[in-house]
Protein backbone atom coordinates (compact mmCIF):
# COMPACT_ATOMS: atom_id res chain seq x y z
CA UNK A 1 0.00 0.00 0.00
CA UNK A 2 1.30 3.44 -0.92
CA UNK A 3 1.37 5.55 2.19
CA UNK A 4 0.18 9.14 2.04
CA UNK A 5 1.69 11.57 4.53
CA UNK A 6 -0.46 14.64 5.12
CA UNK A 7 0.85 15.69 8.53
CA UNK A 8 3.67 18.05 7.53
CA UNK A 9 2.82 20.51 10.31
CA UNK A 10 3.74 17.77 12.78
CA UNK A 11 7.07 17.14 11.11
CA UNK A 12 8.68 16.73 7.70
CA UNK A 13 11.12 14.12 6.40
CA UNK A 14 14.77 15.21 6.39
CA UNK A 15 15.73 16.20 2.83
CA UNK A 16 18.35 13.80 1.45
CA UNK A 17 20.67 16.72 0.65
CA UNK A 18 20.30 17.97 4.23
CA UNK A 19 21.19 14.54 5.57
CA UNK A 20 24.23 14.34 3.31
CA UNK A 21 25.42 17.76 4.45
CA UNK A 22 25.12 16.60 8.06
CA UNK A 23 26.79 13.17 7.78
CA UNK A 24 30.47 14.27 7.87
CA UNK A 25 29.85 16.01 11.21
CA UNK A 26 29.16 12.84 13.18
CA UNK A 27 32.28 10.65 12.95
CA UNK A 28 34.66 12.41 10.60
CA UNK A 29 34.48 16.11 11.50
CA UNK A 30 33.46 15.47 15.08
CA UNK A 31 35.34 18.26 16.84
CA UNK A 32 34.02 20.49 19.61
CA UNK A 33 33.62 23.99 18.20
CA UNK A 34 35.15 25.42 21.37
CA UNK A 35 38.47 23.53 20.98
CA UNK A 36 41.62 25.33 19.86
CA UNK A 37 43.00 22.51 17.68
CA UNK A 38 42.19 21.85 14.04
CA UNK A 39 39.38 19.38 14.91
CA UNK A 40 37.68 22.10 16.89
CA UNK A 41 38.32 24.79 14.33
CA UNK A 42 36.81 22.63 11.59
CA UNK A 43 33.61 22.43 13.64
CA UNK A 44 33.80 26.14 14.54
CA UNK A 45 33.99 27.11 10.91
CA UNK A 46 31.02 24.87 10.04
CA UNK A 47 28.92 26.49 12.80
CA UNK A 48 30.02 29.99 11.79
CA UNK A 49 29.21 29.41 8.14
CA UNK A 50 25.81 27.97 8.98
CA UNK A 51 25.00 30.85 11.29
CA UNK A 52 26.03 33.31 8.61
CA UNK A 53 23.84 31.59 6.01
CA UNK A 54 20.86 31.55 8.38
CA UNK A 55 21.40 35.22 9.26
CA UNK A 56 21.24 36.03 5.56
CA UNK A 57 17.96 34.14 5.28
CA UNK A 58 16.48 36.13 8.17
CA UNK A 59 18.17 39.36 7.04
CA UNK A 60 19.89 39.85 10.39
CA UNK A 61 23.38 39.76 11.90
CA UNK A 62 25.07 36.46 12.74
CA UNK A 63 25.28 37.53 16.38
CA UNK A 64 21.49 37.77 16.47
CA UNK A 65 20.99 34.04 15.78
CA UNK A 66 20.90 31.84 18.90
CA UNK A 67 20.69 28.09 18.30
CA UNK A 68 18.49 26.08 20.65
CA UNK A 69 17.30 22.48 20.93
CA UNK A 70 14.15 23.39 19.00
CA UNK A 71 11.14 25.66 18.78
CA UNK A 72 9.92 24.99 22.32
CA UNK A 73 13.23 25.97 23.89
CA UNK A 74 13.42 29.10 21.73
CA UNK A 75 9.90 30.11 22.87
CA UNK A 76 10.86 29.50 26.50
CA UNK A 77 14.04 31.54 26.10
CA UNK A 78 12.21 34.43 24.46
CA UNK A 79 9.49 34.69 27.09
CA UNK A 80 11.30 33.80 30.30
CA UNK A 81 14.44 35.53 29.02
CA UNK A 82 12.69 38.88 28.54
CA UNK A 83 10.66 38.68 31.75
CA UNK A 84 13.65 37.74 33.90
CA UNK A 85 15.92 40.34 32.28
CA UNK A 86 13.37 43.03 32.90
CA UNK A 87 11.84 42.49 36.29
CA UNK A 88 14.31 44.55 38.38
CA UNK A 89 14.32 47.66 36.15
CA UNK A 90 10.65 47.54 35.54
CA UNK A 91 9.86 47.69 39.23
CA UNK A 92 11.25 51.22 39.38
CA UNK A 93 9.37 52.49 36.35
CA UNK A 94 6.01 51.02 37.23
CA UNK A 95 6.11 51.27 41.00
CA UNK A 96 6.72 47.62 41.76
CA UNK A 97 4.13 46.35 39.36
CA UNK A 98 4.67 42.96 37.81
CA UNK A 99 5.65 42.95 34.13
CA UNK A 100 2.69 42.52 31.81
CA UNK A 101 2.69 40.17 28.84
CA UNK A 102 0.26 39.92 25.93
CA UNK A 103 -0.17 36.76 23.93
CA UNK A 104 -2.95 34.95 22.11
CA UNK A 105 -5.18 32.23 23.51
CA UNK A 106 -4.30 29.91 20.63
CA UNK A 107 -0.51 29.96 20.77
CA UNK A 108 1.50 26.76 20.68
CA UNK A 109 1.78 25.15 24.13
CA UNK A 110 5.47 26.13 24.26
CA UNK A 111 4.37 29.77 24.56
CA UNK A 112 1.04 29.31 26.30
CA UNK A 113 2.23 26.99 29.07
CA UNK A 114 5.31 29.14 29.70
CA UNK A 115 3.10 32.21 30.11
CA UNK A 116 0.63 30.34 32.32
CA UNK A 117 3.39 29.07 34.58
CA UNK A 118 4.96 32.52 34.96
CA UNK A 119 1.53 33.86 35.81
CA UNK A 120 0.80 31.07 38.30
CA UNK A 121 4.18 31.72 39.93
CA UNK A 122 3.15 35.33 40.44
CA UNK A 123 5.94 36.64 38.20
CA UNK A 124 3.82 38.31 35.53
CA UNK A 125 0.43 39.66 34.65
CA UNK A 126 -0.84 38.15 31.40
CA UNK A 127 -3.51 39.02 28.85
CA UNK A 128 -4.59 36.24 26.49
CA UNK A 129 -6.19 37.66 23.37
CA UNK A 130 -8.84 35.50 21.76
CA UNK A 131 -8.79 35.16 18.00
CA UNK A 132 -11.97 35.98 16.10
CA UNK A 133 -14.20 33.26 14.62
CA UNK A 134 -11.89 33.17 11.57
CA UNK A 135 -8.89 32.38 13.74
CA UNK A 136 -7.28 35.79 13.33
CA UNK A 137 -5.92 38.16 15.97
CA UNK A 138 -7.28 41.69 15.67
CA UNK A 139 -4.77 44.55 15.82
CA UNK A 140 -7.16 46.66 17.88
CA UNK A 141 -7.34 43.93 20.55
CA UNK A 142 -3.58 44.06 20.99
CA UNK A 143 -3.58 47.84 21.11
CA UNK A 144 -6.25 48.01 23.78
CA UNK A 145 -4.54 45.33 25.89
CA UNK A 146 -1.33 47.34 26.26
CA UNK A 147 -0.66 48.67 29.76
CA UNK A 148 2.01 50.85 31.33
CA UNK A 149 3.87 47.74 32.53
CA UNK A 150 3.61 45.76 29.27
CA UNK A 151 7.03 44.41 28.29
CA UNK A 152 6.30 41.69 25.76
CA UNK A 153 3.82 40.83 23.05
CA UNK A 154 4.08 37.29 21.67
CA UNK A 155 1.90 36.34 18.70
CA UNK A 156 2.45 33.32 16.46
CA UNK A 157 2.96 33.85 12.73
CA UNK A 158 1.01 30.85 11.40
CA UNK A 159 -1.25 28.83 13.68
CA UNK A 160 -0.15 25.20 13.75
CA UNK A 161 -3.66 23.70 13.85
CA UNK A 162 -5.76 25.87 11.59
CA UNK A 163 -3.03 27.46 9.48
CA UNK A 164 -4.30 31.02 9.82
CA UNK A 165 -1.72 33.73 9.13
CA UNK A 166 -1.50 36.52 11.68
CA UNK A 167 -0.69 40.12 10.68
CA UNK A 168 2.82 39.99 12.17
CA UNK A 169 4.19 42.94 10.19
CA UNK A 170 1.25 45.16 11.11
CA UNK A 171 1.56 44.19 14.79
CA UNK A 172 5.31 44.89 14.66
CA UNK A 173 4.74 48.31 13.14
CA UNK A 174 2.02 49.10 15.65
CA UNK A 175 4.28 48.24 18.58
CA UNK A 176 7.10 50.28 17.07
CA UNK A 177 4.79 53.30 16.82
CA UNK A 178 3.57 52.86 20.40
CA UNK A 179 7.14 52.45 21.67
CA UNK A 180 8.02 55.95 20.44
CA UNK A 181 5.62 57.45 22.94
CA UNK A 182 6.44 55.51 26.10
CA UNK A 183 9.23 54.94 28.59
CA UNK A 184 8.87 51.20 28.97
CA UNK A 185 9.64 49.65 25.61
CA UNK A 186 7.50 46.72 24.49
CA UNK A 187 9.29 43.85 22.80
CA UNK A 188 7.65 41.78 20.10
CA UNK A 189 8.16 38.03 19.73
CA UNK A 190 6.69 35.78 17.08
CA UNK A 191 6.70 31.99 17.04
CA UNK A 192 7.25 31.47 13.31
CA UNK A 193 7.78 27.70 13.45
CA UNK A 194 4.93 27.01 11.01
CA UNK A 195 5.64 30.00 8.77
CA UNK A 196 9.14 29.45 7.37
CA UNK A 197 8.08 27.11 4.59
CA UNK A 198 5.74 29.56 2.88
CA UNK A 199 6.06 33.08 4.25
CA UNK A 200 8.40 36.05 4.39
CA UNK A 201 10.89 35.53 7.21
CA UNK A 202 12.75 38.82 6.85
CA UNK A 203 12.92 40.09 10.45
CA UNK A 204 13.35 43.68 9.30
CA UNK A 205 10.25 43.50 7.14
CA UNK A 206 8.32 41.87 9.97
CA UNK A 207 9.41 44.41 12.62
CA UNK A 208 9.99 41.69 15.22
CA UNK A 209 12.49 41.77 18.09
CA UNK A 210 12.42 38.03 18.62
CA UNK A 211 11.49 35.18 16.30
CA UNK A 212 11.35 31.42 16.84
CA UNK A 213 12.21 28.87 14.15
CA UNK A 214 12.52 25.09 14.03
CA UNK A 215 14.39 22.97 11.47
CA UNK A 216 12.22 19.86 11.40
CA UNK A 217 9.23 21.67 9.92
CA UNK A 218 11.28 22.63 6.86
CA UNK A 219 12.84 19.25 5.97
CA UNK A 220 15.69 19.67 8.45
CA UNK A 221 16.54 17.50 11.48
CA UNK A 222 14.63 17.37 14.77
CA UNK A 223 16.29 18.76 17.88
CA UNK A 224 17.49 22.06 16.44
CA UNK A 225 15.82 25.45 16.40
CA UNK A 226 16.76 29.06 16.86
CA UNK A 227 15.75 32.29 18.45
CA UNK A 228 16.45 35.48 16.58
CA UNK A 229 17.22 38.16 19.17
CA UNK A 230 17.54 41.70 17.83
CA UNK A 231 20.77 43.40 19.00
CA UNK A 232 20.33 45.10 22.33
CA UNK A 233 17.21 43.20 23.38
CA UNK A 234 17.86 42.09 26.95
CA UNK A 235 17.59 38.32 27.46
CA UNK A 236 18.37 36.34 30.58
CA UNK A 237 19.90 32.99 29.60
CA UNK A 238 17.90 29.92 30.60
CA UNK A 239 20.59 27.27 30.21
CA UNK A 240 23.64 28.11 32.22
CA UNK A 241 27.13 26.76 31.57
CA UNK A 242 29.79 27.60 29.02
CA UNK A 243 29.81 30.78 27.00
CA UNK A 244 28.34 29.37 23.79
CA UNK A 245 25.76 31.25 21.70
CA UNK A 246 27.01 34.66 22.84
CA UNK A 247 26.43 33.62 26.47
CA UNK A 248 22.71 33.31 25.78
CA UNK A 249 22.53 29.49 25.60
CA UNK A 250 25.19 27.24 27.07
CA UNK A 251 26.02 23.80 25.71
CA UNK A 252 28.35 22.28 23.11
CA UNK A 253 27.09 23.22 19.67
CA UNK A 254 25.03 20.57 17.89
CA UNK A 255 27.26 20.92 14.83
CA UNK A 256 25.66 18.39 12.49
CA UNK A 257 22.16 19.69 13.16
CA UNK A 258 23.23 23.33 12.81
CA UNK A 259 24.78 22.46 9.43
CA UNK A 260 21.58 20.62 8.50
CA UNK A 261 19.42 23.57 9.56
CA UNK A 262 21.41 25.92 7.29
CA UNK A 263 21.23 23.46 4.41
CA UNK A 264 17.46 23.13 4.83
CA UNK A 265 17.09 26.90 4.59
CA UNK A 266 19.37 27.03 1.57
CA UNK A 267 17.14 24.49 -0.20
CA UNK A 268 14.02 26.38 0.87
CA UNK A 269 15.48 29.61 -0.48
CA UNK A 270 16.42 28.21 -3.90
CA UNK A 271 13.13 26.38 -4.17
CA UNK A 272 11.06 29.51 -3.64
CA UNK A 273 13.23 31.48 -6.05
CA UNK A 274 12.87 28.94 -8.86
CA UNK A 275 9.12 28.38 -8.75
CA UNK A 276 6.23 30.12 -7.14
CA UNK A 277 5.79 27.08 -4.98
CA UNK A 278 2.93 28.40 -2.85
CA UNK A 279 0.61 28.53 -5.85
CA UNK A 280 0.98 24.82 -6.65
CA UNK A 281 0.34 23.61 -3.13
CA UNK A 282 -2.48 26.12 -2.72
CA UNK A 283 -4.28 24.57 -5.68
CA UNK A 284 -4.08 21.12 -4.07
CA UNK A 285 -5.21 22.55 -0.73
CA UNK A 286 -8.23 24.19 -2.34
CA UNK A 287 -9.16 20.99 -4.13
CA UNK A 288 -9.01 19.13 -0.81
CA UNK A 289 -11.05 21.78 1.05
CA UNK A 290 -13.73 21.99 -1.63
CA UNK A 291 -13.95 18.22 -1.95
CA UNK A 292 -14.22 17.58 1.80
CA UNK A 293 -16.82 20.31 2.30
CA UNK A 294 -19.12 18.34 -0.02
CA UNK A 295 -19.51 15.87 2.84
CA UNK A 296 -22.70 16.93 4.70
CA UNK A 297 -22.41 18.62 8.10
CA UNK A 298 -18.82 19.71 7.71
CA UNK A 299 -17.17 23.12 7.95
CA UNK A 300 -13.74 24.67 7.48
CA UNK A 301 -11.93 25.89 10.60
CA UNK A 302 -10.04 29.15 10.17
CA UNK A 303 -10.04 31.87 7.56
CA UNK A 304 -9.86 30.69 3.99
CA UNK A 305 -8.24 33.92 2.82
CA UNK A 306 -5.50 34.34 5.42
CA UNK A 307 -4.41 30.74 5.45
CA UNK A 308 -1.27 28.70 4.99
CA UNK A 309 -1.24 27.13 1.50
CA UNK A 310 -0.51 23.80 3.20
CA UNK A 311 -3.31 23.64 5.79
CA UNK A 312 -6.75 22.05 5.64
CA UNK A 313 -8.73 21.80 8.90
CA UNK A 314 -12.30 20.61 8.73
CA UNK A 315 -14.82 19.58 11.40
CA UNK A 316 -17.26 16.76 10.75
CA UNK A 317 -20.25 16.74 13.08
CA UNK A 318 -21.07 13.40 14.77
CA UNK A 319 -17.83 11.70 13.82
CA UNK A 320 -14.94 11.53 16.26
CA UNK A 321 -11.47 12.63 15.15
CA UNK A 322 -9.41 9.72 16.42
CA UNK A 323 -11.81 7.21 14.90
CA UNK A 324 -11.49 9.09 11.59
CA UNK A 325 -7.67 9.01 11.89
CA UNK A 326 -7.65 5.25 12.55
CA UNK A 327 -9.79 4.68 9.47
CA UNK A 328 -7.53 6.94 7.40
CA UNK A 329 -4.48 5.09 8.74
CA UNK A 330 -5.98 1.81 7.55
CA UNK A 331 -6.00 3.41 4.08
CA UNK A 332 -2.38 4.45 4.58
CA UNK A 333 -3.25 8.13 5.06
CA UNK A 334 -1.66 10.12 7.90
CA UNK A 335 -3.43 13.21 9.31
CA UNK A 336 -4.15 14.69 12.75
CA UNK A 337 -7.10 15.84 14.89
CA UNK A 338 -8.10 18.39 17.52
CA UNK A 339 -10.19 15.79 19.32
CA UNK A 340 -9.77 15.36 23.06
CA UNK A 341 -9.25 11.65 22.55
CA UNK A 342 -5.74 12.08 21.17
CA UNK A 343 -4.56 14.88 23.40
CA UNK A 344 -3.56 12.77 26.39
CA UNK A 345 -5.12 15.44 28.58
CA UNK A 346 -8.60 14.54 27.24
CA UNK A 347 -9.18 18.24 26.53
CA UNK A 348 -10.31 19.27 23.05
CA UNK A 349 -8.06 21.56 21.01
CA UNK A 350 -7.46 24.86 22.82
CA UNK A 351 -7.10 26.47 19.40
CA UNK A 352 -10.60 25.56 18.22
CA UNK A 353 -12.12 26.35 21.64
CA UNK A 354 -10.48 29.81 21.62
CA UNK A 355 -12.18 30.54 18.28
CA UNK A 356 -15.56 29.86 19.85
CA UNK A 357 -16.18 26.28 18.73
CA UNK A 358 -18.17 24.00 21.02
CA UNK A 359 -16.31 20.92 22.32
CA UNK A 360 -18.47 18.59 20.22
CA UNK A 361 -17.42 20.54 17.11
CA UNK A 362 -13.74 20.12 18.03
CA UNK A 363 -13.86 16.34 18.45
CA UNK A 364 -14.64 15.84 14.78
CA UNK A 365 -11.89 18.11 13.47
CA UNK A 366 -9.29 16.73 11.08
CA UNK A 367 -6.14 18.51 9.95
CA UNK A 368 -4.38 17.64 6.71
CA UNK A 369 -1.12 19.48 6.12
CA UNK A 370 0.40 19.20 2.67
CA UNK A 371 4.10 19.06 1.82
CA UNK A 372 6.55 19.53 -1.03
CA UNK A 373 5.92 16.08 -2.43
CA UNK A 374 2.14 15.98 -2.05
CA UNK A 375 0.54 14.99 -5.37
CA UNK A 376 -2.89 15.46 -6.85
CA UNK A 377 -3.32 11.67 -6.89
CA UNK A 378 -2.85 11.66 -3.10
CA UNK A 379 -5.49 14.37 -2.66
CA UNK A 380 -7.83 12.38 -4.94
CA UNK A 381 -7.32 9.29 -2.78
CA UNK A 382 -8.28 11.22 0.38
CA UNK A 383 -11.36 12.58 -1.33
CA UNK A 384 -12.26 9.12 -2.47
CA UNK A 385 -12.13 7.48 0.99
CA UNK A 386 -13.33 10.26 3.32
CA UNK A 387 -17.07 10.24 2.52
CA UNK A 388 -17.27 6.51 3.29
CA UNK A 389 -15.33 6.86 6.55
CA UNK A 390 -17.55 9.68 7.81
CA UNK A 391 -20.71 7.85 6.76
CA UNK A 392 -19.61 4.66 8.51
CA UNK A 393 -18.81 6.46 11.77
CA UNK A 394 -22.03 8.45 11.68
CA UNK A 395 -23.95 5.20 11.31
CA UNK A 396 -22.29 3.95 14.51
CA UNK A 397 -23.22 7.12 16.38
CA UNK A 398 -26.38 7.38 18.53
CA UNK A 399 -26.96 10.85 17.06
CA UNK A 400 -28.69 11.12 13.74
Amino acid sequence: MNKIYLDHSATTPVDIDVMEAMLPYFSEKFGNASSVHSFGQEARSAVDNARHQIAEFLNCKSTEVIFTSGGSEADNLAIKGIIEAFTPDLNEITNKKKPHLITSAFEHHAVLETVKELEADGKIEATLIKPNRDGLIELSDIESAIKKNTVLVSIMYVNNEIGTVQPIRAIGQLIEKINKERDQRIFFHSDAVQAAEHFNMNVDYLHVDLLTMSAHKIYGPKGIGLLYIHSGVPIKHQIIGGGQEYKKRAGTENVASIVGFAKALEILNTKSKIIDDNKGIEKLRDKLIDGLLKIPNSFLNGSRKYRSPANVNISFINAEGEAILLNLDMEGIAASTGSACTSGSLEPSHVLISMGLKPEQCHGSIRFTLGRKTTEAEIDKVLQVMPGIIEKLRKMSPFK
Partner: protein
Amino acid sequence: MESLYSDEIMDHFKNPRNLGEIENADGVGTVGNPNCGDVMKIYIKVLSRKLVSGKKEEYIADIKFQTLGCGAAIASSSIATELVKGKSIDQALKLSSKQIAERMGKFPPAKYHCSILAEDGIRSAIKDYRRKTQSSKSK
Protein backbone atom coordinates in the same frame (compact mmCIF):
# COMPACT_ATOMS: atom_id res chain seq x y z
CA MET B 1 2.75 -1.79 11.09
CA GLU B 2 3.14 -0.07 14.46
CA SER B 3 -0.23 0.68 15.97
CA LEU B 4 -1.59 2.66 18.91
CA TYR B 5 -3.90 -0.19 19.86
CA SER B 6 -3.83 -3.96 20.25
CA ASP B 7 -5.06 -6.24 17.46
CA GLU B 8 -8.09 -7.05 19.65
CA ILE B 9 -9.14 -3.38 19.78
CA MET B 10 -8.52 -2.87 16.07
CA ASP B 11 -10.55 -5.99 15.29
CA HIS B 12 -13.55 -4.71 17.28
CA PHE B 13 -13.08 -1.23 15.84
CA LYS B 14 -13.10 -2.51 12.27
CA ASN B 15 -15.85 -5.10 12.78
CA PRO B 16 -17.87 -4.03 15.79
CA ARG B 17 -20.09 -6.79 17.26
CA ASN B 18 -23.67 -6.00 18.25
CA LEU B 19 -23.66 -2.62 16.51
CA GLY B 20 -27.03 -0.97 15.97
CA GLU B 21 -30.26 -0.48 17.89
CA ILE B 22 -33.08 -2.65 19.20
CA GLU B 23 -36.59 -1.50 18.46
CA ASN B 24 -38.76 -1.59 21.57
CA ALA B 25 -35.77 -2.44 23.73
CA ASP B 26 -36.51 -3.44 27.32
CA GLY B 27 -33.77 -1.15 28.60
CA VAL B 28 -31.77 1.71 27.08
CA GLY B 29 -28.79 3.40 28.69
CA THR B 30 -26.90 6.44 27.41
CA VAL B 31 -23.62 7.41 29.06
CA GLY B 32 -20.93 10.01 28.39
CA ASN B 33 -21.64 13.33 26.77
CA PRO B 34 -20.82 15.08 23.49
CA ASN B 35 -18.73 17.57 25.48
CA CYS B 36 -16.11 15.01 26.41
CA GLY B 37 -16.30 13.33 23.03
CA ASP B 38 -17.59 9.87 23.84
CA VAL B 39 -21.26 8.91 23.93
CA MET B 40 -22.43 5.30 24.27
CA LYS B 41 -25.99 4.11 23.92
CA ILE B 42 -26.74 0.52 24.95
CA TYR B 43 -30.00 -1.32 24.13
CA ILE B 44 -30.99 -4.59 25.83
CA LYS B 45 -33.69 -7.19 25.27
CA VAL B 46 -34.39 -9.17 28.46
CA LEU B 47 -36.04 -12.60 28.57
CA SER B 48 -36.63 -15.11 31.28
CA ARG B 49 -35.35 -18.69 31.28
CA LYS B 50 -35.83 -21.71 33.49
CA LEU B 51 -32.77 -23.01 35.31
CA VAL B 52 -32.07 -26.69 36.02
CA SER B 53 -32.96 -25.99 39.65
CA GLY B 54 -36.41 -24.95 38.47
CA LYS B 55 -35.84 -21.33 39.36
CA LYS B 56 -36.32 -18.63 36.74
CA GLU B 57 -33.76 -16.02 35.84
CA GLU B 58 -33.73 -12.98 33.63
CA TYR B 59 -31.01 -12.79 31.04
CA ILE B 60 -29.80 -10.50 28.28
CA ALA B 61 -31.22 -12.16 25.19
CA ASP B 62 -29.99 -9.43 22.86
CA ILE B 63 -27.83 -6.34 23.16
CA LYS B 64 -26.84 -3.59 20.73
CA PHE B 65 -24.80 -0.43 20.98
CA GLN B 66 -24.27 2.86 19.21
CA THR B 67 -21.16 4.88 20.03
CA LEU B 68 -19.82 8.26 19.03
CA GLY B 69 -16.19 8.23 20.07
CA CYS B 70 -12.63 7.15 19.53
CA GLY B 71 -11.31 3.72 18.59
CA ALA B 72 -11.07 2.60 22.21
CA ALA B 73 -14.63 3.76 22.94
CA ILE B 74 -16.05 1.84 19.98
CA ALA B 75 -13.98 -1.27 20.76
CA SER B 76 -14.85 -1.25 24.47
CA SER B 77 -18.58 -0.98 23.64
CA SER B 78 -18.28 -3.91 21.27
CA ILE B 79 -16.29 -6.01 23.76
CA ALA B 80 -18.63 -5.19 26.68
CA THR B 81 -21.74 -6.15 24.72
CA GLU B 82 -20.10 -9.40 23.72
CA LEU B 83 -19.14 -10.18 27.33
CA VAL B 84 -22.69 -9.81 28.68
CA LYS B 85 -24.77 -11.17 25.79
CA GLY B 86 -26.62 -14.29 26.97
CA LYS B 87 -25.59 -13.67 30.59
CA SER B 88 -28.07 -13.32 33.43
CA ILE B 89 -28.81 -9.80 34.62
CA ASP B 90 -26.99 -10.54 37.88
CA GLN B 91 -23.90 -11.71 36.02
CA ALA B 92 -24.04 -8.75 33.65
CA LEU B 93 -24.09 -6.36 36.60
CA LYS B 94 -20.84 -7.92 37.80
CA LEU B 95 -19.01 -6.94 34.60
CA SER B 96 -16.17 -4.60 35.57
CA SER B 97 -14.15 -2.07 33.62
CA LYS B 98 -11.11 -4.14 34.59
CA GLN B 99 -12.46 -7.18 32.73
CA ILE B 100 -13.20 -5.03 29.68
CA ALA B 101 -9.74 -3.41 29.81
CA GLU B 102 -8.10 -6.83 30.08
CA ARG B 103 -9.87 -8.00 26.94
CA MET B 104 -8.87 -4.78 25.17
CA GLY B 105 -5.16 -5.43 25.69
CA LYS B 106 -2.70 -2.68 24.76
CA PHE B 107 -3.98 0.91 24.78
CA PRO B 108 -2.73 4.29 26.06
CA PRO B 109 -3.42 4.73 29.82
CA ALA B 110 -5.54 7.85 29.13
CA LYS B 111 -8.05 5.55 27.42
CA TYR B 112 -8.94 3.57 30.53
CA HIS B 113 -12.04 5.73 30.97
CA CYS B 114 -13.46 4.10 27.81
CA SER B 115 -13.72 0.76 29.61
CA ILE B 116 -15.37 2.50 32.57
CA LEU B 117 -17.83 4.11 30.18
CA ALA B 118 -18.70 0.70 28.71
CA GLU B 119 -19.30 -0.76 32.20
CA ASP B 120 -21.49 2.26 33.03
CA GLY B 121 -23.37 1.81 29.76
CA ILE B 122 -24.34 -1.78 30.56
CA ARG B 123 -25.40 -0.87 34.12
CA SER B 124 -27.36 2.10 32.86
CA ALA B 125 -29.31 -0.05 30.38
CA ILE B 126 -30.10 -2.62 33.12
CA LYS B 127 -31.12 0.14 35.51
CA ASP B 128 -33.49 1.48 32.85
CA TYR B 129 -34.94 -2.02 32.39
CA ARG B 130 -35.54 -2.42 36.14
CA ARG B 131 -37.10 1.00 36.42
CA LYS B 132 -39.49 0.15 33.57
CA THR B 133 -40.45 -3.27 34.96
CA GLN B 134 -40.97 -1.90 38.46
CA SER B 135 -43.18 0.92 37.23
CA SER B 136 -45.26 -1.53 35.16
CA LYS B 137 -45.63 -3.80 38.22
CA SER B 138 -46.77 -0.90 40.35
CA LYS B 139 -49.45 -0.10 37.78
